[in-house]
């Protein structure tokens, strides 16, 4: 299928420990920079998309702050994978003629706020989550991912050492990224000796809690070719939600990625073997194993073996999370937008020491909630 849209501009906000900015200001700064990257300005934006800004009407608040009145807005929130889905929505909106220049942006100051929660309205007391899940005292989201990890170990014999390989590789990539929050190398032993949070997951199996955000600009193929940068085409996408709370997951070790990935590959006319660089949501080490399996990079249950022997490290043959990922680069509560930014930069060949040679196809895959939502985007170099 001929691509409809392309990503023409990307930018990160300030990352890491941000002390003097609120999320709206960070989103504005990233948006202006991403638009400038494309040779556009806020005046060109007629589609505005965001998630995770914790007010009741985030589209209105953000548009007002930016000083724009877009004809198309979307603030659908399915957790950290929202932004992969937003690329799909932007592409569809552009195809339908609802907008021509879609700006997707997100920022959070959760490190500054000392809260893993992105904020938002209080959990209603009548909710299932309040009555039956939070009451157990199991922390969320990590408890849910721990349950999936234990189940994966039980069904497939996956080991803590294999999971640790994901964290070790992420840190090695982060060592090549000047913007990464944690850059000192770690070993499998370091991961296994870090304190348990919810077994079998240790502290170093968990993503960072940082401030950060970014912006991505999507426009039509036609408009894209008149702009400043070589466009990165949106080749395919898919998404699937399965549940909200962990007890209601249909299967703890089989995620919606099986559906979202299949749809994305079918739309693009590609297969997993065509992917040159993979940016896969790494909220926890287990998230990567499940995604690799469900996206078809290996058979179900073989994710642990797939990442062994440094395969996903720099130079290891399967470039994964080249920024250092949510585990070592930046995880501002919702990581999906930063997956897209790194995917685009790899395809543009501007990643310096961590550049993957001859990268022509990038897969960006988000996982949100408690393995609740999956959204996949395939991007192609010009």
């Amino acid at each position, binding site marked *: 299928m001929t691509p409809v849209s392309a990503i023409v501009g990307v930018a990160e906000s300030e990352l890491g420990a941000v002390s003097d900015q609120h999320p709206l200001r960070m989103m504005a700064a990233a948006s202006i920079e991403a638009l400038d990257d494309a040779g556009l300005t806020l005046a060109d934006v007629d589609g505005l998309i965001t998630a995770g800004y914790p007010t009741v009407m985030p589209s209105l608040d953000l548009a007002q702050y930016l000083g724009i009145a877009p004809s198309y807005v979307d603030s659908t929130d399915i957790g950290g994978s929202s932004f992969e889905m937003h690329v799909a929505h932007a592409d569809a909106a552009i195809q339908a003629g609802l907008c021509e220049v879609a700006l997707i942006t997100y920022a959070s100051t959760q490190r500054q706020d000392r809260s893993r*929660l992105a904020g938002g309205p209080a*959990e209603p*007391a*009548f909710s*299932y989550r*309040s*009555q*039956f*899940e*939070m*009451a*157990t*005292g*199991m*922390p*969320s989201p*990590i*408890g849910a991912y*721990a*349950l*999936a990890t*234990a*189940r994966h*170990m*039980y069904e497939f014999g996956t080991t803590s050492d294999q999971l640790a390989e994901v964290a070790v590789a992420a840190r090695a990539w982060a060592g090549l990224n000047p913007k990464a929050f944690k850059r000192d190398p770690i070993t499998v032993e370091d991961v296994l000796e870090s*304190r*348990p*949070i*919810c*077994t*079998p997951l240790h502290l170093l199996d968990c993503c960072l809690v940082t401030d950060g955000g970014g912006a991505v600009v999507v426009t039509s193929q036609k408009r894209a070719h008149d702009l400043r940068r070589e466009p990165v085409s949106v080749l395919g996408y898919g998404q699937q939600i399965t549940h909200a*709370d*962990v*007890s*209601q997951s249909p299967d*703890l070790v089989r995620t919606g990625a099986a559906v979202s990935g299949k749809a994305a590959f079918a739309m693009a006319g590609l297969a997993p073997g065509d992917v040159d660089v993979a940016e896969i949501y790494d909220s926890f080490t287990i998230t990567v194993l499940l995604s690799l399996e469900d996206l078809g990079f290996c058979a179900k249950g073989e994710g642990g073996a797939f990442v062994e022997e440094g395969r996903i490290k720099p130079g290891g043959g399967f470039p994964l999370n080249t920024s250092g990922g949510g585990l070592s680069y930046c995880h501002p509560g919702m990581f999906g937008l930063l997956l897209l930014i790194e995917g685009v930069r790899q395809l543009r060949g501007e990643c310096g020491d961590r550049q993957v040679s001859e990268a022509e196809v990038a897969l960006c895959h988000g996982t949100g909630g408690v393995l609740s939502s999956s959204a996949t985007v395939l991007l192609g170099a010009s």
Partner: protein
Amino acid sequence: MTNTVPITVDPDSEPFSAGLEQGELRLQRCAGCQRFQFPPRGFCVGCHQGPLRWERASGAGKIYSLTVCYLAGTAEMSESTPFVVGLVELDEGVRILAPLELPVEAAEPAAIGTPVIARFRARDNRQELVFAPAGEEAADA
């Protein structure tokens, strides 16, 4: 960390909570399609039609997965770490997240599949649903 979570009943789950106070695990069942469902809802999520009734469940199930929490998600549980939480698949086909009465050392992935039985334990001013290995039920009796 959130504050203490109040256990608040809603019209859908009130019979479930009332059951706990009487030492009973109750589940909604559709009189039309016979399906059990949890969490409680105002309609049958299977056939969308049948009237729902509350039945006393067997209380028997198996551990579907489990974790030892060294970090608590609520202030109420922060003094109780480490504690074991399990996702239990009941014989009726539904899954419930609940505390597991299992020693921390035994709460390994290898314990998945272990038969468990519902028990009720006093906590604050209410009865809390927990699950314990089924074999120990007889020993206690």
